[in-house]
Structure formats: structure tokens, C-alpha cells
């Protein structure tokens, strides 16, 4: 695995401050998350060799792409990167197909056209082969840019807000396409996004950036359940993310039975094969806490756990309660009043009530 790992270390005080270091393994998706102007695009440009910070080490597996200490520097076209540019940077004189074909230089000449059309179909632009960028809508342009980046079959994929201009339905489908591609290609993927759904659906790791400095980074599950990251909460909405296995599909009741470290979960049905490992996300504000197991409700899931942490932030009137359910952290966002009424404190046993429809089941597989 580590033979194609991307490792990056960038440091400079000015003009664009940078101070960070990360690695990304093949098959992993590192989401870079940070306010506007914090340096996300600059990081991607540094990896691609389009920007040269004062101190930079960029390695793709055994290949040194940049090393300011030794003076090593591979020019951008010798780095096997696919880049979705934030502002697309399409070639204005080429059709959508021409744009994609430009990145297919590694394929035999005869195959390029067919492959370009395949990729355009993948991004739902099968009808727009011959249009030039200026004859496309904003979202269509962005999808051409995405197809072009994928065409390269790169060793590293860098995407700068790749779905910002597309509607949610297309976005979901693209997220799924990217997710399955990432697994097939088995390459590191670095994703810059402001959208939490992108993070939840695609990211395995997260890097939180603030004015060029990595304020936190690590596997998504760890970061998402850290109650101290109020900054993250404000930006993206807090939630718990963990893996689970599909145990049964109950089409009659419209349910999907999942097993996770903390027990069983009923989610609403989706076309996923039994046995598949999926990612589960439960938004903190949709979790209800109860002192005893309730009945007569429309909800299915009552998970027994123990309060392991409480955190409140003066900027918010909510309290985040961390409940440990069989080793898995579950976050619930409740009002201060609820804390008082239910007498919630660390060590208190409680039930976490979760609607089936509140459980996001994320899987690239759709049988």
C-alpha cells in the first residue's frame, strides 16, 4: 500500500502562509476542509507542482515530486496527477470531447475517442460531446473538468470543489461514481470541499485547515466524534460516522438490518447486498436521548449506552452528549434544558433513539 502513498509537507510563512503535513494512502480520500482563503487550493497546486512554496516535500510512493531541501522538482506534466480545478480551466478551443481526450495521451490513439465518450457519459454529459465550454452551463463545465481529471488515470487525484456547481441529485450520483472509481483505481484522492455531504460520502480522512495551518487531521471517524471541534460543528454539522455490515434486507417492511460494534440498527431499505460493509452516519441533532426504552413511536432504534462526555459551547445553546454504545461513539445534540430534565451526566446510562430515516447508509455499491 505504502508504495503509492502520497506524502506532503508544506511550510512557508508568506506570502500565502502554509504549515502542514499529511499522508494519503491509495484508496483513501483525504478531505481538506477550511474557510475560504485558508490555502486549500494552494495545497493542491503545490502537490501538482504548479506552486512552489518555500519549503515543500511531496512524494508519490517512491517518487520525489518536490523536495526543496535537495532541490528536486518534477515539472507538473511529469507528475501523474489528475486535477479538477476550482474554476475548471477548460480549454476554450476544444469541444467537451476534445478536452477529455487531451488527458488521454497515455492511451493508444484509436481508443481515446471511445474512452472520452465513456467518461462524458459517466458525468451525465453524453449529449454534449461536441459543445465548446462556452456553450455549456456552469455545472456542465464542471463535469467536463471532472471527466478530464479522471481521464488521466493518475497516480494521485486532486479535486478542488468538484461538485460545487452541480445540483444535489447529480452530485450524489457523481459522489458514488467517484467513490467506486477510487476503489477500482486504488489511488490517493485529495478532495477540497465546503460541502459536508461530500465529506461524509467520500472522505476517509479529514484535514482541517485554518490560515494555512492544519488544526486537526486524521481518520474521519475520529475527527467527527471529537466534541471539542466546535469550529467543525459550526461549519458542517456534527455527527457520528462508523462502519457497519448489512445483515438483512427486509423489502416487505422497507428496512435494512445493520450490525455494528454497538449492536443492531434498522435503516430504511436500500439496494445493497447482504454482507457489504457500509459507512453509517447519524447526524447529532437527529439523535434523541431517553431515560428508558420508549414504545409506540415511529422509530426503530433504541441503542443502550453510557454518557462518556459532555461538551457545551457558549456560542451555542446546544449541548453535545457523547454516548458510548459498545465501543462506538454516538453524538447527540440536545438543549441545556434536556440535560437538566433527564439529569444527564458522565456515566449515566441512556438510550439513544434514532429514526431509521435518520441513518445515512453510504455505499458505492448498488446491486
Amino acid at each position, binding site marked *: 500500500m505504502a508504495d503509492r502513498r502520497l506524502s506532503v509537507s508544506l511550510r512557508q510563512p508568506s506570502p500565502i502562509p502554509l504549515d502542514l503535513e499529511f499522508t494519503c494512502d491509495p484508496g483513501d480520500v483525504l478531505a481538506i476542509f477550511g474557510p475560504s482563503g485558508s490555502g486549500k487550493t494552494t495545497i493542491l497546486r503545490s502537490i501538482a507542482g*504548479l506552486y512552489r512554496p518555500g519549503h515543500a516535500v511531496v512524494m508519490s510512493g517512491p517518487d520525489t515530486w518536490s523536495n526543496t531541501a535537495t532541490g528536486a522538482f518534477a515539472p*507538473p*506534466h511529469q507528475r501523474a496527477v489528475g*486535477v479538477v*480545478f476550482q474554476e475548471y*480551466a477548460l*480549454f476554450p478551443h476544444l469541444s467537451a470531447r476534445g478536452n477529455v481526450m*487531451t*488527458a488521454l495521451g497515455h492511451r493508444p490513439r484509436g481508443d481515446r475517442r471511445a474512452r472520452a465518450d465513456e467518461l462524458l457519459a459517466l458525468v451525465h454529459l453524453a449529449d454534449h460531446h461536441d459543445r465548446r*465550454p462556452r456553450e455549456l452551463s456552469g455545472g456542465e463545465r464542471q463535469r467536463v473538468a471532472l471527466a478530464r481529471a479522471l481521464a488521466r488515470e493518475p497516480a494521485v487525484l486532486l479535486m478542488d470543489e468538484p461538485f460545487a456547481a452541480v445540483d444535489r441529485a447529480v452530485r450524489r450520483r457523481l459522489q458514488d461514481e467517484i467513490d467506486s472509481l477510487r476503489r477500482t483505481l486504488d489511488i490517493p484522492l485529495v478532495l477540497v470541499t465546503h460541502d459536508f455531504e461530500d465529506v461524509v460520502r467520500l472522505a476517509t480522512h479529514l484535514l482541517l485547515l485554518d490560515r494555512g495551518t492544519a488544526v486537526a487531521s486524521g481518520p474521519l471517524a475520529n475527527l467527527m466524534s471529537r466534541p471539542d471541534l466546535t469550529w467543525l460543528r459550526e461549519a458542517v454539522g456534527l455527527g457520528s460516522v462508523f462502519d457497519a455490515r448489512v445483515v438483512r434486507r427486509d423489502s416487505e417492511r422497507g428496512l435494512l438490518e445493520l450490525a455494528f460494534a454497538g449492536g443492531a440498527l434498522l435503516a430504511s431499505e436500500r439496494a445493497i447486498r447482504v454482507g457489504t460493509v457500509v459507512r453509517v452516519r447519524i447526524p447529532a441533532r437527529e439523535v434523541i436521548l431517553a431515560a428508558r426504552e420508549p414504545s409506540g413511536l415511529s422509530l426503530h432504534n433504541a441503542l443502550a449506552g453510557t454518557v462518556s462526555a459532555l461538551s457545551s459551547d457558549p456560542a451555542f445553546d446546544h449541548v453535545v452528549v457523547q454516548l458510548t454504545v459498545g465501543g462506538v461513539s454516538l453524538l447527540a445534540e440536545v438543549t441545556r434544558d434536556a440535560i437538566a430534565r433527564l439529569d444527564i451526566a458522565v456515566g449515566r446510562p441512556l438510550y439513544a433513539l434514532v429514526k431509521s430515516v435518520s441513518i445515512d447508509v453510504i455505499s458505492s455499491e448498488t446491486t
Partner: protein
Amino acid sequence: MDWTALSVSLWLGAGTIAILLPFGIWLGRLLAVRQFRGKLVVEALVTVPLVLPPTVLGFYLLVTFGARSPLGQAFHAIVGQSLPFSFTGLLVASAIANLPFVVQPIQRGFEAIPSDIRDAAACCGLSPWQRFARIELPLAWPGVLTAAILAFAHTLGEFGVVLMVGGNLPGETRTLSIAIYDRMQAFDDRSAGVMAATLLVIAVVTLMLTTTLSRRAGFARG
């Protein structure tokens, strides 16, 4: 109508473009993309052939490439032909005289390409050469077209340099411009007028065709 002179003129125009465009594209792109010491000086020097009166430029070229000069002798030793009073010599002189028309517009053409397009081309894995051929040149095309049009038209009309370096040899270095001038000197305004009109019609038609074809080919900005 001096058809031989017309043919010399057209060959000279085509030849000048054939020599100058590659060089102009190379130098124009260099000036557009690279920052280097003395760039400003190079930019200014490129316009020098324009500043000198053509006959004077022709005289200096005659001296520089002439039978007496080391350069002229070296050329003669290698090619077995001397530059002055030959079509080859005309071509060289014409290329030098037209240099300014070619470099400046091409430089602007390359300068107008946004840097993110260049970046994207590199990130598509295109080598510098492929980048140049597939992305930069098509996008700089309007500038190249202007260069070609100015150089071609100016070569047809050029007269001072050509006369000085070429020596007015029929079929070899007598261009239509010289023929028109000669007729006019001989107060044969009628022939001069016919030839001038022919030259104009040919030039206008060529330029219109070039522009149209170039636009058809869709080389201009998308």
C-alpha cells in the same frame, strides 16, 4: 502585366512567412512566457528593422552579407551561392525586414493565454511540446494570423530593401513592386496601375481567404 514578377512576389511572400512564422512564434512565445534580464532590450531591438529606411537597411544588409564580408564569404563557401542578387538573399533580407511585424503580435497572442489554461494542460500530462502544439498555438492563433497577414502584405509591397539586396534581376529578384515602380518611373502609369490593381486584388482575396479559412477551422478562441 509582368507575370514573372508577380510570381516572384508571391513566392517571396510565401517564403518570408514560411521562414518568419516559426522563428516569430518561437521568439514571441519566449518573450511572452519567460522573464529574463534584457528582455526589454530584445523587445526593442526586434523593432529596429522597422526604424531604418528600407534602402538604408538594404544597404547595410548588402554590406553584411556581401561578397566582401566574412559572413557573405562563409555563406558562399557553404551554399555555393552568394546572398546578394539572388532569390535566397531576397528571402533573408525580407525575413529581417519583416521581423517586427511578426514578433509583436505573436507575443501578444501568447500573453493573452490565461495561466490556468497552461496549468491545466500540464496537469493533463502534455509535454511542453504537446502543450505548445495543442493548446498554446491554437489559442494564440489570432496573433499569429495578424503576424502572417502583416508580413505577407508588407512583403508584397516591400521595395527598398528588395531592390537594394536583389538588384532587380528579372525572374529572380524583380518583384511586382519593383516592376510597378519601374513602370511608374518610366511614366507608364497605365501599366503601373494595372499591375498595382492586380497586386491589390490578389492581396485582398488572399487575406480574405486566409481569414475565413482560419475562422472556419475554428482556431480562434472557443
